């Protein structure tokens, strides 16, 4: 019935180690429409990576349903592109072969698509370079091109720019927005950088830790490209910050009541 591309209902996940069990996610409800750019923000350990890995099929939820295009997710696949925090390129393959990965560059359609993607992520001239010759930002762009070649229904990005310096990060955010406008790929990007969440997201999901729960969401009604210094942008920053303060108070109250 629903028009959503991704539907998550009452998702729970806990990890059991020898000594104890950690509830990483509790009662997650999330619908993502096609073409949306959702950013997920929350403090460390609130289950952001776990959520993304479950959507990618790399991890299994315990209860609840996760559906992509109405189909339950059974495992990882190329329809769910995943960008890890580190680029994870194959060090023995050149840039173009990393993008092609299991596909052969000798096929003309792969060749032309790879060339087009190299232009899209602005890596002209580096097609034959090895990963060790690339900077962190360039390597992450190769990883993005590798995922895009598979025409994923959804692109999942787990703190993709977390390891980059501020300038490279700002540049990468613009590259990603360009791709989003150009391809219309649905994106979910996890971050702990408020600026990044507001700059990129058409909707911001706010997660709180222990257990990981959605504590609120903010629709960002600003046109792209957004100006980080504008008053409207700052308004949204404050709204996100206020949500976090509310979470802190709640956490304080709960633990205070418990003792």
């Amino acid at each position: 019935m629903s028009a959503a591309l991704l539907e998550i209902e009452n998702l729970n996940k806990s990890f059991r180690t020898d000594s104890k069990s950690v509830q990483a996610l509790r009662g997650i409800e999330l619908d993502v429409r096609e073409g949306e750019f959702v950013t997920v923000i929350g403090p460390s350990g609130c289950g952001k990576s776990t959520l993304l890995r479950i959507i990618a099929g790399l991890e299994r939820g315990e209860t609840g349903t996760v559906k992509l295009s109405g189909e339950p997710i059974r495992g990882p696949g190329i329809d769910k592109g995943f960008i890890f925090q580190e680029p994870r390129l194959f060090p023995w393959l050149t840039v173009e072969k990393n993008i092609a990965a299991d596909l052969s560059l000798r096929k003309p359609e792969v060749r032309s698509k790879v060339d087009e993607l190299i232009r899209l992520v602005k890596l002209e001239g580096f097609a034959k370079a090895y990963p060790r010759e690339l900077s962190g930002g360039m390597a992450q762009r190769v990883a993005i091109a590798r995922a895009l070649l598979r025409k994923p229904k959804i692109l999942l990005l787990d703190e993709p720019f977390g390891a980059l310096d501020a300038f490279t990060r700002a540049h990468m955010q613009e590259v990603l927005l360009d791709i989003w406008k150009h391809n219309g790929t649905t994106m979910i990007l996890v971050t702990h950088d408020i600026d990044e969440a507001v700059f990129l997201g058409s909707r911001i999901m706010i997660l709180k830790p222990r257990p990981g729960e959605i504590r609120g969401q903010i629709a960002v009604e600003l046109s792209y490209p957004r100006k980080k210094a504008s008053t409207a942008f700052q308004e949204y920053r404050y709204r996100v910050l206020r949500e976090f303060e509310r979470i802190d108070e709640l956490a304080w109250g709960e633990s205070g009541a418990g003792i």
Partner: protein
Amino acid sequence: MTQQAEPLRSGWRPPLARRTWNSGVWAHFAWAALLPGLILLGWQLYTAYGEVNPILLPSPAAIAEALGTLTASGELAVQLGVSLGRAALGTLYGCAAALALGTLVGLSRLAAKLLDPSMQLLRLTPSLAIAPLIILWFGFGETSKIVIIATGAFFPLYLATIQSLRGVDGRLTEVARVLQFGRAQQLSRLLLPGAMPGLLSGLRLAMAYGWLSLVVAELLGAQAGIGYLMSHAQTNGHPAIIFVGVLVFAVMGKLIDLLVATVEKRVLRWRDSYAG
């Protein structure tokens, strides 16, 4: 700072292979030859001016003369050819078996549980101890020699294969899952290149051990080969020829090792550690 918008070395790559050959190898040789050269000099002086029985310790000059005669008559080339052929065949069989079994054990938990304990037991049995058994089973002919060499070459590569397949970066395995690599691609684009550094150093060890086992095999009774030349010289009282044999074994061993090391550098060009 490794994270910059621009590359650290934009597109430029040092001409690795050539540079290694021109300066690296010769410098390597010069350093390696320094100590043996000094010993040789002392040895010559000692045998020339000291009271030494030439049957026990021939002078370097006498050894050089024996080397000259054996080379001129073509005998050395013939025996060396026999030895090299044996070593190559035995090492080939040993390495092929090691790759096959190592891949099986490295990739399948079941095979690991079934095979590996027995293999570990066999591994710790000294090859000199099994050699008489092998001769008992396969006779004094060529087969037993090939088997002894193959056994020697097998274990280093077998262990390296298992370890390097298991050591392939799990984060890259996850990428292969997300990209839905087929079985063939998983092997050719992920496992094989990922394991390659380990496989090559295993191969290097395997070839060294194959060569060492050749000596064992030939000294235990052979009708041809460098080892035969040596044991023959021993019974006939030609100590200089024994020294020639030792020399040939040593030099060939080193050359083989150098060959694999060179291949290793070329194949692993993508690695950071070989950049400078």
